[in-house]
């Protein structure tokens, strides 16, 4: 006769529940690691323990090499939104608000969030796989055995470069987005550039720019921190590198959306 314990273990409910508990414990474990490393990185930054040469290399990687793909994604998103909105608004007599709507949308949301997604896909995944490869090939262990703080050496320039370069990327991407919005509105709805830009500045305040920059800094630091942490704790060879990279991208995407929600509630609610 099958025992109650054995029966329960075979049941679908038990399997779903135990899988959920495993995911939850992994979630808590990862959050703990990110918080612990984030604190260590912050201490190093405040103490001024920054490798300037490596910081410049990472800034180039984070900001400059990622710019084409980020501009493409933000630009295309702006074209899509403008092509949907401009025509309808002009038809409904709201041509005086197309520029305003596009600018608010891009500066407050699209610029930062789409850049965040682009950077995560390109830089976050690369950071995670780089550190994961270093971990599984014992390079991280070698750093520790040589008496060097591996978190300071690997994390500080990468996280700091994210904080510094992300606002730059978001500003450039937002400008491109607003400009492409104007071009699209002209092509799709016959809205003049003058009409577009006359209203573009109406709804834009210094607060919007400030929040946009703060959000970009937070996104940059978050993407780097999460991606590096996922890579740093990778294990198990090539498969482990793949798992760490996927985890870094998924976690960064979720973190960006969560941060965006927090910013929306804090500043625009």
């Amino acid at each position, binding site marked *: 006769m099958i025992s109650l314990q054995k029966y329960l273990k075979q049941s679908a409910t038990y399997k779903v529940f135990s899988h959920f508990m495993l995911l939850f414990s992994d979630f808590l474990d990862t959050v703990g690691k990110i918080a612990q490393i984030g604190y260590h990185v912050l201490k190093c930054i405040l103490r001024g323990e920054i490798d300037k040469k490596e910081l410049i290399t990472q800034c180039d990687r984070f900001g400059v090499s990622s710019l084409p793909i980020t501009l493409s994604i933000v630009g295309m998103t702006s074209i899509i939104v403008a092509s949907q909105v401009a025509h309808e608004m002009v038809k409904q007599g709201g041509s005086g608000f197309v520029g305003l709507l596009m600018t608010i949308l891009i500066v407050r949301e699209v610029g930062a969030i789409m850049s965040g997604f682009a950077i995560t896909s390109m830089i976050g995944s690369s950071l995670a796989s780089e550190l994961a490869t270093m971990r599984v090939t*014992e390079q991280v262990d*070698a*750093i520790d*055995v040589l*008496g*060097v*703080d591996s978190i300071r050496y690997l994390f500080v320039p990468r996280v700091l470069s994210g904080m510094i370069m992300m606002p730059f990327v978001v500003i450039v991407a937002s400008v491109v987005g607003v400009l492409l919005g104007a071009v699209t509105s002209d092509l799709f709805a016959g809205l003049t550039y003058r009409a577009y830009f006359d209203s573009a500045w109406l709804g834009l305040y210094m607060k919007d720019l400030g929040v946009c920059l703060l959000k970009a800094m937070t996104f940059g630091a978050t993407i780097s921190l999460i991606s590096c942490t996922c890579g740093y704790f990778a294990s198990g060879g090539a498969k482990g590198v793949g798992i760490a990279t996927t985890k870094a991208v998924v976690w960064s995407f979720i973190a960006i959306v969560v941060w965006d929600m927090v910013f929306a509630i804090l500043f625009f609610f």
Partner: protein
Amino acid sequence: MSIEVKNLIKTFDERTVINDISFKVNDGEILAIVGFSGSGKSTVLKLICGLIPYDSGEVLTSNGDIAMVFQYSALFDSLNVADNISFALKERKDLRKKYTPEQIKKIVSEKLELVGLKGIENKFPSELSGGMQKRVSFARAIVTNPDIILYDEPTAGLDPMSSTLIEDYIVSLKRELNAASIVVTHQMSTITRTADRVIMLYDGKIVFEGTPTELLKQDTPYTKQFVTASLEGPMQMQA
């Protein structure tokens, strides 16, 4: 005494990998840790150099540096040979401001000469053969003149001639630095050519302790099985 391990225990996921082992290694002595794969040899090295924490017991080491030569060299592939070797001198808190760039360059050149690889400072690890990578990792390990050197399977995957060369370097480094060294290996030539003493691990425990000559005598069922590489005997390979 340079390394003393006392009643060391390490468990991974309810499996005791190191089960109450104790041993000593003196200055200028090479201890070989042997055993079949999965017997916990590399774990002992990682416990000694602090890469993983132990559950109980003690690891006492002299105050100087501990260096480790990794099984697959673990060279930093984004840095050239010179930067790999000088990594600790440039990045370690207590050494960062101690040396000028000229002094670092001289030290790198000296260490490379010591392992017989003069003039490859600007090459990247991917441009070197396995044996050369291993020798560069030796040079990187000894850059701070450590008191303790740990070798994790230093001759694994190398051809017989490269293995002999590496074994000679292990012995010459011992003489040069008077360091206490531990060599994890299962290669007989490495044991006989380098070690002063040998311990054999099985199932996380020490099952033999003696000299390489005593190991080769095959006086115990463990040594007999190890030396003859037999599947019959007290040591069972894990499935």
